[in-house]
């Protein structure tokens, strides 16, 4: 049994979070994600949850830190400039190994930039963003249904590994409406949290949540523990979608909104006799390097084309995975502009011409 | 009757207890050094102690126990 409704992306994220057992939301308004806040403000008390409008994104991420330390399932959401403000708190959350979900509905930058969609926060999301050696799990949905499914998964992953999971959306996904089917009973996987601060009654020791290790040997040991955790996640939590990989000569790499445009291009290209496939990363961290490397080594693959709404960020990880086997081309639009199917098809035609020589 | 005892190794020789004792019977013992390298506080004459706890209350390091 399930419920099928037409909903706006931002609202689906909020609804999904509540269905996943999130009972604490802290946020600050910023376009184009404010509907997540409004939905939470309206609906949280219906499930006995707590909504707080914080004084800033900085305050919000620190409220997340506190609520997560106290054992709560907690969400905050923002957009690029606000996510920049949160980086300190995100680093602290990583160091203290707290579970949390942060949504970034990406807008065009840098600086105040514009309010239209972009993918310019890939580096910030996947390469740390804040100070120190850490990673967040980064998930990139590409449809309203995925916004639901992956938001629920985000909370489960966060609690499973005591890690921050970032949902990297963009303005298009946040604002558009599509049908979404909700499950009636969401299977919630909430582990026990004996480490959480709840008042020390019933315990022999008081719990402390900190990211401070003044002794360098202690801090190095902690860092190695974190890296071990990340190694496990890299082995077990990679998610991607592969299209037409069996006989593609040109392989597109794209995520989120860009990948939706590319789907249609693949069909058009095949009508012209050009065999195009796509690897759509769903987790940006851990990055699906293995499948890209595998496809790169295949005889059939002649070239890669990476399409992003930025000046070239994920393409660096694609190039690393391809490791010089095949040429990797890049095409990007910025400022909030989206590439048209024609622009991408032109890129494919010109690559096809080159590799057919 | 009253008595003060000092946990020598917690003392940092700050002298606050010396200054607040109304009977002026606490000194920093120049003859001794504790494990931190400070001259620890000690009572020169327990018979004069009135157990007011001024010293213990002023001590930032919980060095002093007072009995009465």
């Amino acid at each position, binding site marked *: 049994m399930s419920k099928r409704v037409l909903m706006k992306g931002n609202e689906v994220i909020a609804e999904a979070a509540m269905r996943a057992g999130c009972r604490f939301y802290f946020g600050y308004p910023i376009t184009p994600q404010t509907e997540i806040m409004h939905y939470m403000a309206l609906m949280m008390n219906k499930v006995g949850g707590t909504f707080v409008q914080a004084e800033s994104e900085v305050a919000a991420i620190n409220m997340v830190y506190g609520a997560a330390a106290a054992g709560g399932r907690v969400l905050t959401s923002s957009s690029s400039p606000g996510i920049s403000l949160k980086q300190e708190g995100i680093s602290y959350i990583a160091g203290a190994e707290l579970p949390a979900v942060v949504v970034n509905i990406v807008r065009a930058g840098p600086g105040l930039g514009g309010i239209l969609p972009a993918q310019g926060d890939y580096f910030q999301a996947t390469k740390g963003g804040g100070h120190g050696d850490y990673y967040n799990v980064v998930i990139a949905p590409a449809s309203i249904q995925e916004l639901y499914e992956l938001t629920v998964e985000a909370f489960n992953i966060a609690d499973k590994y005591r890690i921050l999971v970032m949902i990297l959306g963009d303005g298009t996904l946040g604002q558009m409406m599509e049908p979404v089917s909700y499950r009636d009973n969401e299977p919630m996987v909430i582990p026990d949290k004996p480490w959480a601060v709840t008042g020390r009654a019933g315990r022999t020791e008081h719990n402390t949540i900190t990211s*401070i290790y003044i002794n360098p040997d202690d801090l190095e040991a902690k860092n190695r523990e974190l890296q071990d955790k990340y190694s496990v996640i890299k082995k077990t939590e990679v998610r991607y979608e592969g299209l037409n990989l069996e006989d593609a000569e040109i392989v597109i790499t794209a995520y989120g909104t860009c990948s939706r445009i590319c789907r249609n291009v693949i069909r058009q290209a095949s009508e012209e006799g050009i065999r195009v496939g796509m690897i759509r990363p769903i987790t940006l961290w851990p990055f699906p390097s293995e499948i890209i490397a595998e496809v790169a080594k295949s005889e059939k693959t002649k070239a890669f084309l990476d399409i992003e709404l930025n000046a070239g960020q994920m393409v660096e990880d694609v190039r690393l995975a391809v490791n010089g086997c095949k040429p990797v081309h890049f095409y990007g639009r910025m400022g909030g502009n989206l590439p048209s199917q024609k622009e991408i098809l032109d890129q494919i035609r010109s690559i096809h011409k080159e590799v057919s020589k | 009757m009253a008595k003060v005892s000092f946990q020598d190794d917690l003392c940092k020789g700050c002298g606050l207890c010396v200054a607040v004792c109304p009977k002026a019977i606490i000194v920093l013992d120049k003859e001794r050094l504790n494990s931190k390298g400070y001259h620890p506080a000690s009572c020169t004459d327990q018979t004069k102690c009135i157990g007011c706890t001024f010293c213990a209350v002023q001590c930032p390091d919980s060095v002093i126990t007072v009995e009465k």
Partner: protein
Amino acid sequence: MAIVFQRTEGLTQKPFHYCPGCTHGIIHRIIAEVMSETGILDHTIGVSSVGCTYNNYEYFACDMVQAAHGRAPAVATGIKRVHPDKMVFTYQGDGDLASIGTAEIIHAAARGEKICTFFVNNAVYGMTSGQMAPTSLLGQVTTTSPFGRDAAVQGYPINVSEMLATLTGAVYIERVTVTDFKNIQAAKRAVAKAFRVQQQGLGFAFVEFLSTCPTNWGKEPVESLTWLKENMIPQYPLGVFKGKDLVV
């Protein structure tokens, strides 16, 4: 003979790392004593901040969370919203609360968050070696006001208690000091009152402690107590700024 004073159960056994004569030690102790004596030690979660007391989660025997610089009131908000039935407090210095954390303290107070904030004002930055604080006095020599704080270029000290008193959500605000027995007992009563305010869900409670920093003031510990009395109290008068008539 019976013991009339000994180390409180509200503190762990770990010796404090603070400088000799630093009155943070007294303030930690009276907060710990109140928690232990009023039976809330097992039901309290404290928030450590950044400064000399960055690691006081090792000193208080209750559950503790360490917060980023200035953010303790926001962290405390998160904790209290998850555990409204537990006591939550923050312990912050003048850099943490009155400089980088001004937004967080004002808004926690304005929201009437049911937490206690213990604000230790020693008019200088300790941990980072003696810079000017928002609460440093005019003419005070610090490592970033080496010629004495000059109002023309470095502005004026901030009276946090008076400022927060303008907010309806803040229901109890008192400024105390720990220079002598009488004042320490009054400070301890203020701490107990602040926790009672939280227990009764009345709103935000705030206690500002005037404290010494012998190392960065360049004075002996006993001399520092005198300097505090003669120079800080005129700028930061002791007393209740909100909730004078509060019966808790």
